[in-house]
């Protein structure tokens, strides 16, 4: 067994792991144990088998890691092939995670990549607890926030002191065109995804009155068909599937009709696809840059040979090559990772429940999507509104236009909020804004 670790093909890695250097972390002890740990013990989870995920599996396997899991619910599409290099034309329609895992296991002898063809939300705490490091290459902010919440919920505090052995580092990458970013999160210790939620710009939305009454751009016409005309005419008896060419064709034709009527130019099929699917431009080279930095960070964390990125890096390569590193700060009032009791400030106890929901969605540090609310009212747990379960939605819909007061809430009442952005419910204490 020992000869496997001293094999000549590993000599590149052995030089940095078995020799000490002036810029190593002070606690780094060069020895052959590091490589053994990477190959035998260290378990890495790669979330997302897309552009970044494919790169990560390759990078990690050539940086000595052997025990990897990959999770992705998607299947392979033709438009993935310009960058997701573990997939071929014949793989279209197959599971991304399974195809990627098989490719790596076949190419790199000894590699043991285990695929999971499902959503991250399908796995529980016991699944996530088994990993030493998690690397995340997702284009969904909701999923990022969810995994962040999961890792924070795995932390154990004893007498208010964090048990460091429960910290699972999260290395997160994202790209857009020739730009990208990398961050290293040590849950409970450094800024988490929720601490810096304002780093993610809210999605572009067009005011309803513009798309309905005063469209000016081709995008306005597309949005109109998407949010008003489709639900009304329901042409295929289902909601919009951006990957169904029939759906896109219908939206294209209807928005073109609208654009022509209003004298709006510049509507193209590509634009229709882009708006309907919210497509982010993506290219192989940028994925390579961002994923490789993520994997270097995983290598540093696992071997402790060098200090980690502290803790955020941005690349903007449209004008030369420009990288910028800074330390994102922990938010002491973070909804997810701080130990304080969270509060939500409202103008008055006489606002309606729907206004409270609106507030939960629009507040910069919350940005929830479709929060469900229960509350502790005089010692009894009462469901105020839940959108995601149709039967409960129907029963609770009438509460939306009631005031918080009428629902039995007062200052210091506690509401319990569930949302797709977090695996756990969040307790919020109602506070009235002082000056009102």
């Amino acid at each position, binding site marked *: 067994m020992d000869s496997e670790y001293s094999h000549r093909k590993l000599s590149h890695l052995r030089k940095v792991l078995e020799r000490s250097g002036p810029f190593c972390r002070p606690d780094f002890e060069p020895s052959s144990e590091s490589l053994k740990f990477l190959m035998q013990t260290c378990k890495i989870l790669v979330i997302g088998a897309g552009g970044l995920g494919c790169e990560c599996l*390759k990078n990690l396997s*050539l940086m000595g890691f052997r025990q990897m899991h990959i999770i992705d619910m998607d299947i392979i599409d033709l438009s993935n092939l310009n960058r997701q290099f573990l997939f071929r034309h014949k793989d279209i329609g197959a599971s991304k995670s399974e195809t990627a895992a098989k490719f790596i296991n076949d190419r790199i002898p000894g590699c043991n990549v285990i695929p999971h063809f499902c959503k991250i939300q399908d796995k529980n705490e016991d699944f996530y607890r088994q990993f030493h490091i998690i690397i995340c290459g997702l284009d969904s902010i909701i999923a990022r926030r969810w995994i962040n919440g999961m890792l924070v919920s795995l932390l154990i505090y004893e007498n208010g002191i964090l048990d460091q052995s429960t910290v699972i580092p999260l290395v997160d990458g994202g790209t857009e065109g020739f730009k990208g970013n990398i961050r290293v999160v040590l849950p409970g210790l450094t800024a988490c995804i929720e601490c810096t939620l304002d780093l993610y710009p809210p999605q572009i939305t067009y005011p309803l009155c513009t798309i309905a009454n005063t469209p000016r751009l081709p995008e306005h016409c597309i949005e109109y068909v998407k949010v008003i005309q489709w639900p009304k005419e329901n042409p295929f008896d289902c909601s919009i599937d951006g990957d169904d060419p029939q759906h896109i*064709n219908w939206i294209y034709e209807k928005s073109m009709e609208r654009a022509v009527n209003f004298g709006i130019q510049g509507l193209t099929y590509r634009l229709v696809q882009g708006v309907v699917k919210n*497509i982010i431009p993506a290219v192989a080279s940028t994925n390579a840059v961002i994923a490789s930095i993520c994997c270097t960070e995983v*290598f540093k964390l696992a071997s402790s040979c060098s200090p980690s990125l502290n803790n955020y890096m941005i690349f903007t390569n449209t004008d030369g090559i420009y990288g910028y590193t800074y330390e994102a700060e922990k938010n002491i009032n973070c909804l997810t990772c701080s130990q304080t009791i969270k509060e939500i400030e409202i103008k008055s106890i006489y606002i309606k429940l729907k206004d409270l929901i609106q507030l939960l969605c629009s507040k910069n540090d919350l940005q929830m999507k479709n929060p469900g609310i229960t509350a502790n009212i005089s010692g009894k747990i009462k469901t105020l509104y839940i959108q995601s379960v149709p039967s409960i939605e129907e029963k609770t819909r009438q509460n939306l236009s009631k005031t918080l007061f009428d629902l039995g809430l007062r200052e210091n009442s506690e509401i319990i909020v569930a949302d797709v952005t977090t695996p756990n419910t969040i307790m919020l204490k109602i506070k009235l804004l002082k000056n009102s």
Partner: protein
Amino acid sequence: MASPIPKSPEQSEKNRKYDRQLRLWNDHGQALLEGAHICLINANALGTEILKSLVLPGIGAFTIIDGNKVTEEDIGSNFFLDADSVGKSRAHVSTQFLLELNPDVRGDYIDEGPEQILNNSPDFFNNFNVVIACAILEKSLIILAKKLWELDIPLIVCKTIGFVGYIRVQVKEHTIIEMHPDNEIPDLRLNKPFELLKTYFDSIDLNNFDIRDHSHTPYVIILYKYLQQWLINYQDIPRTKIEKEQFKQMIIDGVRKDENGIPVDEENFKEAIKAVNICISHTSVSNSLKEVLNDNSCINLNSKSSSFWIIAKAIKDFMENEGDGLLPLKGALPDMIADTEKFISLQQVYHKQANTDIEAVWKRTLQLLRQLGKPSDSISEKDVKLFCRHASELCIQRGSSLANEYDAKLINTNEIAQSLENPESLMVYYVVLRGVEKFQAEYNAYPGEFDDHVEPDIVKLKACISKLLGEWGCAPLAKDDYVHEFCRFGGAELHSVSAMIGGLVAQETVKFITHQYKPINNTFIYDAVTCSGSTFIF
């Protein structure tokens, strides 16, 4: 009657496959990419990672030059080899593996080193669009660099050792048409409206509008109207901060009031106030564009002039004549609060003038082609249109010769000496990397390559570096740390560091081929330990 609505166009397989990148560099960028042939010298991990990121987006063709046989060490760091490749030609095996990535791409190889090719077939490199050299020895590098400099073919030299990466771009002249700036400054001509625009503006009387029309008037019209008022009392447009504030106040005062005299909420006026700072200014030509228009290649065209310079000259001629000192109009109007009718009619005014300007530049282009004795179809109207749309972004980069950098008398020693005074500067890595090249030339190995040589190699590498610094007239390195670190690396190629530099080199290659986005000028150094990178100019 409305014209019939077109049916959805059939999407070609290629369009669908490349959709995510076409949104970056568009169909014309893709066409250039698919017509390009690049050469890679040495298919080490870095080399194959670069090619991977060029084969996937569909580069036309690549040629690998590599005389090495695959070793066990190669397999440990290079994804485009496998366990059965040991002992085979590295050029051959990696070409095969890379071609699997994309059936649209052609690839071939020569299993000889660059030294032999430079000796035996000196014209070999003449027809590549970009040449990329990895792990090339100093002696061959200088010969190759001189050659490509004369041929005016971009050369990218790159390497990684341990946690450190290096990229040097050598290009004699590179022209950029589309810069893709993050924030585009709208071309509105408020202080110098063209006839059509002036007539349009003058046909509008804000005072006659009812409240609905008033609050749905595009801010461009609002700004123009208040600028006209301003100019009754002032000689010039508001320029200073105080003047701009006064001007903004005029606009605020123009907001309609309700029956109680309280200003109503007019979003378009808020937009107008926000737009004052960037929209109220003299339309001027940027320095980098001036550089293009006053360049010798632009002023003195000859039969060898490229289309870039011919169209640039046509634009210059346009500006000096019918353009009245201004560039051809961009013709794009940013979105702003307005009703459809007002927005579209204003948009059409800009659009129409832009087409008139394109027509004029196109005529001038044809005239220049005639004068140069070139066929009239050597430049298309579409090219001219693209140029006019991006005229304000046109840019020329002139690089410096690598051969000069390797000449102790010609290298930019000021940059080195100054940077070395800053203990944070990554320049020290440049110096050590140059020292490593000297070491390799002398001892035919990387410093620290063998486990039992690490200590003695530190002394030798230090000597190489001191000699170099002495030749450059620079003081010796303050600390030995960096020398130690490189002997620890022992020439190791860490895959994730090579993958990172490989991605960057692929980005730069795409920039050269498409003439979109701005490449680095001219050296980039990256330290993966601190995650910091710096650009230096040699």
